[in-house]
């Protein structure tokens, strides 16, 4: 978890591919945005082209209309003859009242065959009106006639405008509707992805990965989920193996240590042993103890991590802290350090391992005492902070740099020369125990000022 947040911080700072995390967008949002933009672009294009298209369609329609009217007129003529329309010299002309359409038949001397449609202006009752006119010539009893069927351009463009307006309303409506349906559908489509993301977010360890497949009808998500499950499974097996190996190696190491220890102790108990030999043997024993302590620590960490410890105790945190203070008070007094207890609240923790929790606090308090010079203070306090119980262990010791802080909980960290002796694994144990109990540890430290370790207990403990 700590590693993750560190990575997040780095990404916030330096970004990925030149983008900081804050500049990144969710897939869902991106799809919706693209969706909207593409709709707007296509609509825009359509609106640009629409007048031309409508005009074309309109003219075609009008021309068809004109041809149809011509056919009707010709049919009428062949039914009732030309006489009712044309008498001797006169010509026939008919307008509807609003002058939107007209039909005229006149005799013509021209012998050309005419059959075309044109746009012309006619002056009717002192009004100049643009018409779309079909000219058609035909012959009855050696007489040529010219038939004109016209439709006013005003009425044509009016229809065009109407169509355009209707189209605009319709398009706007369609855009809104499809934008919402698309967004909803994308969201629905991406739900499995969100679920997979959720599954990944919640876990701190591959063994905790939820193996229940995410419900989806999208094969890609199905494959992704499957692949993740497999990866997690493999990782888990590797982790498990690593833990087993640690446990086994530790066990294997204990036997030779045991042999050496017994041998050295037997030598030390010989009555005729010379004092300087005895000192050397005791030195060797010390070194051996160091090795033993190291192996035991590794074993303990591996055991905790592979859940070999039970969490069945419920107890008050204060009792543990008081016990630790009592244990370490003589040491603090001897080093002239004030070990003070400023516990205000208390928490009864459930489903925990008391001896592990004891070790965790003990290691940290002990570490603080080791790093605090004479006349200094180590203060232990417990309070509720935003519903979460928090134990703070503060010292007025030499503090740490950021670099030291980041390596604090790693096993066998690189230590600088003045960090004292010790295997340096005590804090790694504390961290492992905290993780095991889902306790969050945070450290604040100022070089030469002091360090505070905060243990934040989960809300429901």
């Amino acid at each position, binding site marked *: 978890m700590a590693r993750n947040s560190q990575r997040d911080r780095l990404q916030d700072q330096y970004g990925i591919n030149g983008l900081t995390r804050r500049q990144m967008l969710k897939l869902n949002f991106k799809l919706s945005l693209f969706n909207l933009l593409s709709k707007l672009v296509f609509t825009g294009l359509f609106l640009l082209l629409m007048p031309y298209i409508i005009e074309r369609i309109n003219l075609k329609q009008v021309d068809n209309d004109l041809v149809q009217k011509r056919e009707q007129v010709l049919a009428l003529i062949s039914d009732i003859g030309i006489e009712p329309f044309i008498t001797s010299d006169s010509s026939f002309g008919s307008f509807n009242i609003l002058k939107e359409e007209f039909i005229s038949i006149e005799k013509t001397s021209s012998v050309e065959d005419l059959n075309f449609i044109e746009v012309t202006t006619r002056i009717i009752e002192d009004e100049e009106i643009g018409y779309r006119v079909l000219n058609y010539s035909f012959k009855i009893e050696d007489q040529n006639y010219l038939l004109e069927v016209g439709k006013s351009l005003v009425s044509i463009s009016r229809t065009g405008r109407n169509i355009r307006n209707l189209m605009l309303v319709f398009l706007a409506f369609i855009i809104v509707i499809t934008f919402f349906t698309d967004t909803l559908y994308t969201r629905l489509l991406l739900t499995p992805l969100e679920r997979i993301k959720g599954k990944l977010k919640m876990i701190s360890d591959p063994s905790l990965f939820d193996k229940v497949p995410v419900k989806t009808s999208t094969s890609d998500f199905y494959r992704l989920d499957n692949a993740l499950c497999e990866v997690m499974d493999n990782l888990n097996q590797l982790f498990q193996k690593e833990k087993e190996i640690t446990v086994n190696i530790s066990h294997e190491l204990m036997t030779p240590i*045991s042999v050496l220890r*017994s041998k050295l*102790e037997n030598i030390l108990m010989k009555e005729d042993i010379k004092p300087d030999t*005895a000192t050397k043997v005791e030195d060797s024993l010390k070194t051996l103890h160091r090795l033993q302590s190291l192996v035991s620590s590794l074993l303990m960490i591996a055991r905790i991590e592979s859940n070999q410890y039970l969490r069945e105790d419920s107890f008050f945190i204060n009792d543990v802290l008081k016990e630790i203070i009592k244990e370490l008070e*003589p040491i603090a007094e001897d080093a002239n350090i004030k070990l003070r207890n400023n516990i205000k609240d208390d928490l009864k923790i459930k489903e925990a391992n008391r001896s592990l929790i004891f070790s965790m606090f003990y*290691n940290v308090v002990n570490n603080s005492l080791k790093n605090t010079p004479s006349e200094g203070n180590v203060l232990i306090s417990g309070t509720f902070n935003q519903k979460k119980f928090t134990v703070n262990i503060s010292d007025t010791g030499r503090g740490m740099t950021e670099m030291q802080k980041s390596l604090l909980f790693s096993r066998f960290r690189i230590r600088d020369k003045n960090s004292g002796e010790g295997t340096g694994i*005590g804090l790694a144990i504390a961290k492992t125990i905290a993780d095991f109990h889902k306790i969050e540890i945070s450290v604040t430290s100022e070089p030469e000022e002091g360090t505070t370790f905060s243990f934040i207990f989960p809300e429901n403990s």
Partner: protein
Amino acid sequence: MNILIVEDEKSLASEIAEFLRSENFLCDIANTGTEASEKIAINLYDFVLLDLGLPDYNGLDLLKEARTNNSEASFIIITARGAVEDKVKGLNLGADDYLAKPFALIELLSRINAVARRKFNVTNTDITLGDFTMQVQSRKLVCKGSDVDLTKKEFDLLQYLVLNKDKVLTRHQLYEHIWGNLLDDQYDSNFIDVHIKNLRKKLNLHAPSQWLETVRGIGYRISTE
């Protein structure tokens, strides 16, 4: 007392035997489970030190078997697998005590003695140290009629030294006995020194305590000579 050491690591078995012989025990060694099983069937032992990690035998099975054949014996389980379940299982099957490897020989001895005292119902007698008297039963140290005010740890420390009087105990042996397997990564810790210093201060308020000796470079000893 007659002790059978069941341990597949030969050199460890012989070291344990050497030590216990020097403490006037009669020792027998079995390096395999089969050998142990045979020996337990034939001989009568007061104690069996049983390593659970035998290559040819499940240590717990051997314990079950031995309990029926040799019910007089007391069992102390030794194991490199310090897992809690092993301990609980062993004690449930009737083992009298449990020691995780690596252990101090002195610790083994004091466990054997403690089991023996329990078994033979030996009441702890008071022990005299100079002008002081240690009342083991009531966990009190008395000097010329008045109690010496000791903390629990200080009393434990003194008692362990008394139980192993005339032997030099190293700081680590003392630490291990009193704090058990609490892991302290500061292996050079001066815990014991601090406690001995406090202990001496308290003792000296009542009477001289020259019987509590510091053995340079090694540790501490209570000398009764």
